[in-house]
Structures are given as structure tokens and as C-alpha cells.
């Protein structure tokens, strides 16, 4: 039943470019997909280890910048008479490097998380994102600052002049984002269902107890941060080579907030939560636009909807729907013990 539903859902997602002839909406779907990947990565940290990173966009931006600079090439003076240059590299390499570098930054932040938790971790991550944004804005020689990195090449895969897929047009990019999204989903799923995932959940729920049953708290916090950061970086590289222009605005705080909204409203600590939340809050502005809601009202509706979700479904949409579904099923079949629902509610 569940497997069938997943398959139907995937087939539907895969079929979208075949029947959708509105390229603008396809663009919105691609951007939503990129944000869903970022939200999934944030969920690993926020939902499964309980650490709120309000600088998550930094990893996204680092991925975007590293990948762009690698594929464009650059030349900077690190000291007045010491110049470092790099020739343009293939896009797939840039994307890989962007993901890895974002993961390395995640490692550094994760090590820091060993010392600071809770509110301090939030502040550290905000500051980190802001510092990175200021670097991107002011290191003009490397990043072009507010002039932005332009003409970023698009991804090509295959053997040149024999068989090559160019990810220039929207349908191709849609499939690329979908594939990366599915891959990230599978990675997160495997991770949280593993021993490491159990350890992360344990340390979220009761850290002193987790360490007393032998969970190496630092190790798993760092692991979660690295995977999460690398995934956000991967989303950033997708963004860079799709939009093909990157400026310091990719580090804006509002993008982190958007990711947090997607995770919380969808259901933090659930696999489907950030996907559902991401799709709803990613598409909502467009739905409102097409419903001819005036622009200033769109944000009001957005805000009101969010408040309603948080107020009435504090656990998020996915857990609420699942509880409703399970309780209905339990009502249909009275011999199913009530504890089955409680168990689901606890996850």
C-alpha cells in the first residue's frame, strides 16, 4: 500500500514535464525542488538531532559559490605579490567540490557544536552565515561582490561529441533536481534508520541519558552536520548551474527562514515533512499569484497560513495527517490495538 503510493507519487513527479507546457511553472517547480533538498538537509539537523541551524543558507551559498568559481576559473591576489589562479574545470567536478567544501564547513561548525548548544549554537550559525555573506560581498576580486558571478556554465554529462546530455533547458534541469532530491531522500532515510540515526534521535530526546547508554554525542552531531551541510551545498550547486548567476543575496537570512518554515510546517523529524512543507510553501506564492491575490496580500495569506499550521498542527502537517489516517483505520478495525496509533504518534 505504502510502496504503491510512493511509486505513484514518483511516477507523477517524473511525468510533470511531459504534460506541463507552462515553462514558468516548471521553473517554479525546479526552484521548489532545490529548496526541498535544502529543507531536507536542514531537517536532518533540526528534526533529528534537535539543533537549530539558522545559518543553513551559508552551506547552500558556499556550494553555489565554490561550484561557480571552480567552473568559471578565478585569479586572486592572496598577498600583494602572491597570485592564485585556477582554470575553469568541468561542471560535474565543480558541483562535487562545492558539495565537499560545504561539508567541510559543516564539519567545522559541527565541532563547534560540541562546545555550544541550544541558543548559542543558533547564534554561532547566524554569525557564520553573515560572515560568509560579507566575504562574498566584499571580496570583489574573487566573487565579483554585488556585480555577481555571471555566465556560469550549465552541466553537461557524457562524452563530448559522442553522447552528451546538456542540462540547459528546464525539463532537463527538472529531472536533475528530481534525481538529486530522490538521492538525498534515500541517503537521509538510510541514515536515520541506522544505528547512527537512532543515536541522533536519542541525543535529541535526552542528551545526558544518550551519553550514559554509550552514544558518542559529539561524533553523531558532527556526522549530522557534515551530511546536512554537504546536502545543502549540493542544493546550492544545482541552483548555481541552473540560474547561472550567483550573487551575495544567496546568503540572505530569509532563505534560511524559508527552509525552517518548510521543515516545521511539514513536520520536523519526519522523512516526508520537509518535502510536503517545501512543496506547499514553495508553490503557495505562485498559487496565490494565479488566483489574482494582490501582491501585498500574498504575504499576509502566507503568514496567516503558517500561523494556522503551527497553531493547529504543532507537530506539522505530515504527523497530523498520519495520526488522522491511523486513527481512522483503527476505528474501522476495532481489533487493532490502540497502542499502534500511539506508537506512530511517537515517531
Amino acid at each position, binding site marked *: 500500500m505504502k510502496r504503491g503510493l510512493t511509486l505513484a507519487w514518483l511516477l507523477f513527479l517524473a511525468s510533470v514535464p511531459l504534460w506541463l507546457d507552462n515553462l514558468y511553472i516548471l521553473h517554479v517547480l525546479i526552484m521548489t525542488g532545490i529548496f526541498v533538498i535544502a529543507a531536507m538537509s536542514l531537517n536532518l539537523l533540526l528534526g533529528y538531532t534537535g539543533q537549530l541551524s539558522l545559518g543553513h543558507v551559508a552551506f547552500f551559498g558556499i556550494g553555489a559559490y565554490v561550484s561557480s568559481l571552480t567552473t568559471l576559473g578565478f585569479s586572486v591576489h592572496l598577498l600583494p605579490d602572491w597570485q592564485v589562479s585556477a582554470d575553469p574545470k568541468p561542471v560535474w567536478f565543480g558541483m562535487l567540490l562545492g558539495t565537499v567544501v560545504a561539508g567541510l564547513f559543516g564539519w567545522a561548525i559541527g565541532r563547534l557544536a560540541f562546545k555550544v548548544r541550544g541558543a548559542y549554537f543558533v547564534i554561532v550559525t547566524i554569525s557564520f552565515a553573515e560572515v560568509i555573506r560579507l566575504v562574498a560581498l566584499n571580496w570583489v576580486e574573487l566573487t565579483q561582490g554585488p556585480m555577481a558571478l555571471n555566465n556560469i556554465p550549465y552541466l553537461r554529462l557524457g562524452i563530448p561529441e559522442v553522447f552528451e546530455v546538456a542540462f540547459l533547458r528546464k525539463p532537463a534541469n527538472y529531472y536533475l533536481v528530481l534525481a538529486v532530491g530522490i538521492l538525498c531522500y534515500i541517503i537521509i532515510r538510510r541514515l536515520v534508520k541506522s544505528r547512527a540515526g*537512532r543515536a541522533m534521535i536519542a541525543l535529541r530526546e535526552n542528551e*545526558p*541519558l544518550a551519553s*550514559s*547508554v*554509550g552514544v558518542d554525542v559529539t561524533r553523531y552531531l558532527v556526522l549530522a552536520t557534515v551530511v546536512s551541510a554537504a546536502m545543502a551545498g549540493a542544493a546550492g550547486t544545482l541552483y548555481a548551474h541552473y540560474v547561472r548567476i550567483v550573487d551575495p543575496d544567496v546568503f540572505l537570512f530569509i532563505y534560511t527562514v524559508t527552509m525552517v518554515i518548510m521543515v516545521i510546517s511539514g513536520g520536523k523529524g519526519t522523512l516526508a515533512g520537509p518535502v510536503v512543507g517545501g512543496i506547499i510553501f514553495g508553490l503557495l506564492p505562485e498559487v496565490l499569484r494565479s488566483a489574482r491575490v494582490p501582491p501585498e496580500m500574498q504575504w499576509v495569506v502566507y503568514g496567516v497560513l503558517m500561523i494556522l499550521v503551527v497553531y493547529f498542527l504543532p507537530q506539522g502537517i505530515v504527523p497530523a495527517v498520519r495520526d488522522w489516517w491511523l486513527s481512522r483505520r483503527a476505528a474501522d478495525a476495532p481489533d487493532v490495538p490502540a497502542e499502534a496509533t*500511539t*506508537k506512530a504518534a*511517537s515517531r
Partner: protein
Amino acid sequence: MLKVEGLTCRYGKVAAVRELSMDVNAGELVSLIGANGAGKTTTLKSISGVLPPASGRITFLGEDITRATPKRILQLGIAHCPEGRRVFPYMSVLENLEMGSYLRSDSAEVAEDMAKLFERFPILHERRNQAAGTLSGGEQQMLAISRALMSRPKLVLFDEPSLGLAPNLVERTFEIIKSIRAQGVTVVMVEQNAYAALELSDRAYVLDQGRVIMTGTGAELLNNPHVKAAYLGA
């Protein structure tokens, strides 16, 4: 079996435990009693490695564990049943028990141990799929004790096992602890309920402001006038 020598623990500049020495023989049930802030909980935390001591030496079965990680100490056979929030509230009873065997890789024997615990505490079996946070206080305590046993410890540290429990459950909890000891597991217990603790214990240490001020068998201390006046309210 366990030997603590000259243990000093600090929270910042404040010393919570000063030059504390104690030893525990295999198979014994030893209590630490004393007023709030006497350093009982801190001592247990140092032994289990959650709080590394400022100075002193702790050895267990001949191995120096003063600076060992909680993981290593657990592997050597010391399980810690901390006070207060005792369970993982959103995990099921079953998952809580599985966390107790987190470091074990002998899955067949883990399953066997779990079956034994379920036999001993049928209520946990009944509620195995329920979120641990929805259990009553007494059931949570049973779960916490069972979880500690899932690591197959040689020594269990109980921190305030009776805290926040209804009187009949307190009795039940002490009975469980007694039965654990009867199976050959060594027990070190911190308890506010000095009377019950002393009745149960082979030996006890009385702590005051981070120091051991008195030690003896449970019966000796029960009849000691100073202990009676200060801790038993008689």
C-alpha cells in the same frame, strides 16, 4: 571491584566533591546518603564518565577509568541509571530498551535478555510499542532500570531511584534493586530516602558537603545517633 581514591570534582570553581574515597566489593549493595548538594549525584557522574573529575583516581576491575569515556566505562560493565528524566520520551518502550543495548553486538543474546526482562515486567511487554513518555512514573522507572540491565552490567549506578514515585512504587523499586543484586550484579545507589536505603544496603557512605563523614554497614548507620538525628528524622 570499584575503587575511588581522593576524588575531587568541580563545577567551574565550586568543588562539589572533595577528596572522596570509597570502595565497592563485588556483589555488594552500597548506598551514598546525605543532604541535597552533598555530592552524591556528582560522584556517580564521575564514576560513569559523564563528568570527568578534577583530580583523584577511579579504578574498576583493576583498570584506571578516571579519564575514560562514558562509552568505554559502559563497555567495562558500569551502567548508569541517571536521576530525573529517565527515558527517551518519544521513543517506544522497545526502542528505549534497544538503546540500553546500544553498544552490544550479540543480537541473539540481546533478544534473549529482552525476553527475560519482559517476563519480569509484563507491563513493559504490554506497552512495548507505546511512547515511553506516556508511561506512568513507576513504569518509567521500571523501564529505566530494565534499560540499564540491557547492557549486561557488572555494576549499576542508581541515582535517586525513588524520586518522584508514589510510596507503594518506591517499595516495588527497592525490591527490584534487591533482586538485581540477588542475581550477582553489584549496585551503588544514591538515595534521599536514607531509611530505606540503609535497610537495603550492605554498606553505606554518609556524605556532607562533598566529603565522606561516616561509613559503616547499613545496620550500624541505622543505629548511629548522629545519622538518626541528621538523616532519619528520629
